[in-house]
């Protein structure tokens, strides 16, 4: 019954449907039975370390790489067997891949010209696309004369002017410096939203993924470990890998020694830690906590841990305390604003709410 109900969901929820895609390179499986679904108008990120298969998935969707098996359905159309140029999927490449022998306007016109539009017909849409990314005054410049941020804008205009059914962006911000990157993220997100573009970003930067996307698929070794909105991903990571990759956290390993009313008590080498969990006694686990959930003034019902203050970093918007346990585990405690009164070398007791403990079963 439920399975059927899922099948009858409105098609908008599965605008892009990757079904059972698999890919091997020279006998090495890089992706196996990949299922991935994106709704219309959604901004999604594929997040993971290099070699996790995110770029492979992007290239398979774009048609630049052929999957060994599996289907790619886009807007109800099976595009699996179509070559890249018939899919109407635009790609913004990591290095932008602007055509060096063409001007800015000629670059943007390329996709329209490829679709058979005449030189005079492309003028208006090209001008509009360039205005959209505020590059209209650069129309006749060679692309080699542009800065990184300007090149990215041109690449985006070139990709959007053809009204793609899907926009793929491969590490689009990685070539920009930090300040510019943040500005471009805000700009691009607003632009894509205003035009209702469905887009998939590939990135290894979790902050970027959280900043630009509605949902994030965290990838590891060719699989999606968790596909959720940024807050779920951060607050309820589905695996130790996701917990580790998204946001900073402190980890301790141990095993469950008591289970009572859904609260598991875990014995670690630096003391007991309690967590909301149904895991049974004897289960080997990893527990963790986010730095901003740790308080330097714990109440008695909290998990508590003794650390020696190793460093105090005043970052302006926040102060980060570095603590080291007797077992040499590093703990971070993030406090908002500028805090004083902490001295390096002093031993303090930190704590966090039982409900804030992240717990995952790990192989023994």
């Amino acid at each position: 019954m439920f399975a059927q109900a899922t099948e009858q969901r409105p098609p908008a929820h599965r605008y892009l449907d990757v079904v059972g895609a698999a890919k091997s390179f020279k006998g090495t499986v890089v992706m196996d039975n990949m299922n991935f679904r994106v709704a219309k108008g959604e901004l999604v990120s594929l997040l993971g370390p290099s070699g996790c298969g995110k770029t492979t998935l992007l290239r398979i969707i774009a048609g630049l790489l052929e999957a060994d098996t599996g289907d790619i359905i886009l807007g109800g159309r099976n595009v699996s067997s179509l070559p890249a140029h018939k899919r109407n999927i635009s790609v913004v490449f990591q290095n932008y891949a602007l055509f060096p022998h063409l001007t800015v306007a000629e670059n943007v016109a390329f996709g329209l010209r490829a679709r058979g539009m005449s030189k005079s017909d492309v003028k208006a849409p090209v001008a509009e696309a360039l205005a959209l990314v505020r590059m209209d005054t650069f129309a006749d410049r060679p692309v080699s004369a542009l800065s990184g941020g300007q090149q990215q804008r041109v690449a985006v205009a070139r990709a959007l002017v053809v009204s793609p059914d899907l926009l793929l962006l491969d590490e689009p911000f990685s070539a920009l410096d930090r300040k510019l990157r943040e500005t471009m993220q805000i700009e691009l997100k607003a632009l894509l939203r205003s035009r209702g573009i469905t887009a998939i970003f590939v990135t290894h930067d979790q902050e970027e993924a959280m900043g630009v996307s509605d949902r994030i698929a965290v990838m590891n070794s060719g699989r999606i470990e968790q596909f959720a909105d940024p807050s779920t991903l951060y607050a309820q990571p589905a695996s130790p890998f996701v917990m580790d990759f998204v946001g900073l956290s402190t980890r301790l390993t141990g095993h469950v020694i008591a289970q009572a009313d859904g609260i598991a008590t875990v014995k670690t080498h630096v003391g007991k830690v309690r967590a909301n969990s149904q895991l049974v006694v004897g289960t080997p686990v990893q527990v963790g906590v986010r730095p901003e959930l740790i308080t330097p003034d714990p109440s008695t019902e909290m998990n508590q841990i003794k650390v020696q203050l190793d460093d105090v970093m005043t970052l302006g918007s926040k102060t980060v305390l570095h603590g080291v346990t007797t077992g040499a585990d590093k703990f971070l405690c993030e406090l908002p604003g500028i805090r004083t009164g902490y001295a390096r070398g002093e031993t303090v007791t930190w704590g966090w709410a039982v409900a804030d403990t992240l717990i995952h079963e790990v192989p023994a």
Partner: protein
Amino acid sequence: MIARSNRIALLAVPGLAFLAIIYALPLVMLLFKSIQGAEGLTLVTYIDFFRDEFNQTVLWRTLRVALLTTLLALVIAYPTAFAMARAKGIWLTVFMVALVLPMSLGVIVKAFAWSILFRSNGFLNTTLQAIGMTDGPVRMLFTETALIVGAANVFLPFMVLPIYSVLRQLNSSLPEAASSLGATPWFRFTRVTLPLSLPGVVAGSAFTFSLAISMYVIPSLIVGERQQTLSMLIARSFLYLRNEPLGSTISAVLLAIAIFVVLFSSWLAGRLGARQ
């Protein structure tokens, strides 16, 4: 104190001196002979050269053969270079060896091998007659066509390698970007790959044309005295006719063409490069 860059420039002195003494000096002396008349300097040998109908025929044939050789080599080389640029591992090695190895085999060996292929009772003629394409043997040896085919064969690596090296360095995401923008393979090739590989085409063509216009051994062996080229005319002037002013004059004409090709191709390559 000499600036550092100037001191580094001094490293070029031995090479330049070598070229000046072994190449430039004798060349200037040779060219001087072409304008040295009995009563001072004169251009009479040039006027005589260009007035002579036989010389005109040879000049045009030389230019025509060089141009057609370049075109034939280009047509064969481009797809080869394209395939090589995509080749990996063992296949790339196979291509490279196949391309470079014949260069170590002297032109003379090649020419005699061709004569086996092209002569009237040779492989090609026997095959053509066997399949009924022709009734009698077709003359292939000693024709301009045979010369062009032979020359294009010898100079092929000089066309392939520059095009290959440009295509190899082409950013692979450019053709991919073209595809994702809806370009068919043909549109992608004509609007992206081909224009971006033109510097390689210009360099390869300049090499091949320069080699083809001054070739001596290949025409001597393939077409002999029947269809002379400028180089053969030069050799004949010096060796048989003992007419040094004539030989020098033809050398000057050949040099002028070569200089023009070099300057034109660098200008063209520079223009193409500036756009990129």
